[in-house]
């Protein structure tokens, strides 16, 4: 079945450093979504990428969708303590439910 791998599993950074998490799918995706889950909370939708090679930005967050639509990345510039949490990618093939990666847990040291 479809698998979505996400690395790294954990990342500890000093406040102000950059952070990147990578997502790879075993199959070509129709779209990919990114979610953030704060400690003790529930996942909250960040963004959806649909087009091959698409790049979207949300303030300090940059999201990319690979040309082959099998990989994606989330990059945070100059991390802040409010960025702490687990970031999940979730991919979907046409007309199938989302498959989530295992997430990258980000810790930011002030």
């Amino acid at each position, binding site marked *: 079945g479809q698998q979505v791998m996400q690395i790294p599993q954990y990342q500890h950074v000093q406040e102000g450093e950059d952070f990147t998490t990578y997502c790879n799918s075993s199959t070509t995706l129709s779209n990919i*979504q990114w979610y953030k889950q704060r400690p003790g909370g*529930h*996942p909250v939708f960040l963004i959806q990428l649909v087009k091959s090679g698409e790049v979207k930005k949300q303030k300090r967050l940059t999201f990319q969708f690979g040309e082959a639509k099998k990989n994606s990345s989330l990059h945070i510039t100059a991390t802040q303590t409010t960025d702490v949490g687990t970031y*999940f990618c979730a991919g*979907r093939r046409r007309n199938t*439910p*989302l498959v*989530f990666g295992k*997430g990258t847990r980000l810790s930011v040291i002030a």
Partner: protein
Amino acid sequence: SQTIHQWPATLVQPVGSPLSLECTVEGTSNPNLYWYRQAAGRGLQLLFYSVGIGQISSEVPQNLSASRPQDRQFILSSKKLLLSDSGFYLCAWSVLGQGRVNTGELFFGEGSRLTVL
């Protein structure tokens, strides 16, 4: 605006006891509904999804079951809990679009944290 309610928020159950988690959505009609489980430190595992009343698709064979008795109500049940059923259970909904399973983002409930002893 749309809201999703999930309860109970936490529960501790003995092995072999039954389980019932309930989820309701307000402010939308005919949503897709989902049950996910998140084990400690793990990702989100899709358990069940539903595209309409009485329509349930199971993604993982196990001792859990789901039902959708009403358009905006989704219930997760078990007759006999196992230790391995412990985890954080999340209900979610998304917009149903022309018969497709999922056309956009998932909106998650607050979650139910289950500990089986």
